[in-house]
C-alpha cells in the first residue's frame, strides 16, 4: 500500500463522512451536542485542502498531515482524538513508501494506543475505542493468519461496524454521553459510528 493508496483512503473517508454527516450529527444530538457530523465534515474538507496544497511523498507524511490538520481544524473531542490517531499511525510508518499489511496493523495499533492515552477510555465506555479496538484486533489476527490484504481490511471493517453497533446497549462512561447516565443506553455512539466509516473507507480504497 503506497502513498496513493492512503490518499485514496482519505478521499473515501471524506466522501463517507460527507454522505453520513447528518446521520452522525443525529446520533450526536441524541446523546451529545449535535455536531459530530459537522465537525468531521469540516475537518476532512480541510484535510483535502491541506493534502492538495502540499502533497506528501510518503504514507507516513500523508497521515501525519491528515492528523495535524484534524487537530487544527476540528476542535471538540473528536478533533484531538482522530488527529492523534492519524498522527500516531503516520509516525509508526516512518519514512516507508510501501506499507505491508503487518505494518498497517502496527499503525492501527499505534492509533489505538494514542487515542487511549489521550482520552483514557477503555473498551465498553461507549466511545470510538469500541470500534477502533476490535478493528485493530481483527486486523492483527488477519495478518497473523496470513489473510489476503483485501480480506484483512474486510475483517477490520466488519469488526469496526460490529463494534459500533455494539455500543447501542452500553451506558457511556466517557465523553458527553456519560452525562446522560442510564439515558445514554439505546443509542449508537457517534464516534464509534464514524470510526466504522473510517474502516469501511479503508476497505473501499483497497477495492478501487
Amino acid at each position, binding site marked *: 500500500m503506497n502513498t496513493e493508496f492512503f490518499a485514496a483512503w482519505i478521499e473515501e473517508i471524506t466522501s463517507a463522512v460527507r454522505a453520513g454527516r447528518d446521520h452522525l450529527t443525529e446520533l450526536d*444530538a441524541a446523546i451529545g451536542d449535535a455536531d459530530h457530523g*459537522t465537525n468531521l465534515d469540516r475537518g476532512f474538507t480541510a484535510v483535502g485542502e491541506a493534502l492538495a496544497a502540499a502533497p506528501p511523498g510518503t504514507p507516513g507524511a500523508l497521515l501525519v498531515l491528515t492528523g495535524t490538520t484534524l487537530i487544527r481544524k476540528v476542535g*471538540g473531542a*473528536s*478533533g484531538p482524538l482522530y488527529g492523534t490517531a492519524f498522527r500516531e499511525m503516520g509516525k509508526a510508518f516512518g519514512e516507508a513508501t510501501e506499507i505491508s499489511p503487518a505494518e498497517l496493523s502496527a499503525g492501527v495499533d499505534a492509533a489505538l494506543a494514542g487515542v487511549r492515552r489521550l*482520552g483514557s477510555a477503555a473498551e465498553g465506555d461507549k466511545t470510538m475505542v469500541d470500534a477502533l479496538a476490535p478493528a485493530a484486533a481483527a486486523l492483527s489476527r488477519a495478518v497473523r493468519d496470513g489473510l489476503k490484504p483485501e480480506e484483512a481490511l474486510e475483517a477490520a471493517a466488519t469488526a469496526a461496524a460490529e463494534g459500533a453497533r455494539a455500543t447501542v446497549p452500553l451506558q*457511556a462512561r466517557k465523553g458527553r454521553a456519560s452525562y*446522560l*447516565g442510564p439515558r445514554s443506553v439505546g443509542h449508537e455512539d457517534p464516534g464509534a459510528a464514524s470510526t466504522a466509516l473510517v474502516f469501511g473507507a479503508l476497505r473501499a480504497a483497497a477495492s478501487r
Partner: protein
Amino acid sequence: MKKLINGAGSLVSDALRGMAAAHPSLRVDLENAVVFRAEGPRPGKVGLVSGGGSGHEPLHAGFVGHGMLDAACPGEVFTSPVPDQLVEATKGVDGGAGVLHIVKNYTGDVLNFEMAAELSGDEGVEVATVLVNDDVAVRDSLYTAGRRGTGATLFVEKIAGALAETGAPLAEVARVAREVNERSRSFGVALTPCTVPAAGKPTFELGETEIELGIGIHGEPGRARAAMGEAREIARIAVDAIADDLPPSGETLVMLNGMGGTPLIELYVVFAEVEAYLREKGATVVRSLVGNYVTSLDMQGFMVTTCALTGELTRLWDAPVETPALRWGR
C-alpha cells in the same frame, strides 16, 4: 429552523465581525478567531484566556475587558476551540507574568486546551489551567467524564480577572480561580431544546408538559424528564439539587441565568423563588445576576449557580469590570 444567519458555516466569523463593529474596546482577530482587549497585554499582569464552543453568548467574548478576560477563543457552535487558536490567544495576552487558561470540563475543551498549553509552553509562555466543573447534575463522576463546567465559569472569569488586575502572580490567580470553582455549584432546567444551525433541527423533543432536569449548556438532554410545574416548584428542584451537594450557608452569590430564549420577566419570577428558598435554607444572597449570561442558543430554561462567598471573593466580585456583557465601577 429560522435563524438570523448568512449561513451556518460563516456564523462564528459573521458574529465576530459584529462584535468588532459594536465594541471598540475589543480587538477581534478574525483570521484566528480570537477576541482580545484592544489595549493589548499589560506587562506584569497575568493574562486570562478562556474559550469554548460558540452558542453560549455572551460567554466568553462578552467578558473580555478590564477586570475579566484578556482573550476569548470561540469555537464552532458547541465545539471547543482548536489548539492553534488557543496558542495564538495565549501568546497574544502574555505580559510576561504567565497566562491562566479557564477551561470548562468537557473532553473536547480539556483535550484542546491541554494541547495548547503544551504548545504554548514550548514557545516559552508559562500556563496554568483551572478546570471549571460546577454542574451537580452529573453525579458518579467516576463513571462519567466528570462534572461539566457551566455557570461558575462566569464567576471564575470575573473573580480571577479582578485579582489578575491587581498584579497578583499566576499561582495566586490560579488559586483563587480554583477556590471559586470549588465554592460554586450549578443546576439547569430546560423547557425547550435548542436548534444548532448546522444541524437544522432541535436537539431533542420535549412535550407540552415536560421539562428536562439537569441539563448542560450544549442542548444535550438532561439526566431526567419531569412534569412542567409552577416556577416555585421548579426553582426548588434546582436549589435542592445544589443543596444536596453543598448545603447553602452564609453570604452567597447567585446567578439566575437564562438559557437564551427565556424572557427576562420569567427569570425574575424564578429568582424571587430561588432567593426565598435559599434564605429558608439559611443562606443570604448578597450578590446576584439575573439574565442571559451562559446560554444555549435559543433554549428556554434557566440555570441556578451559587457561590459561597468569602470576604476576599466578595471584594474581587465587586471590583470594577468593563466588558461588553458585565460592567460596573467604570
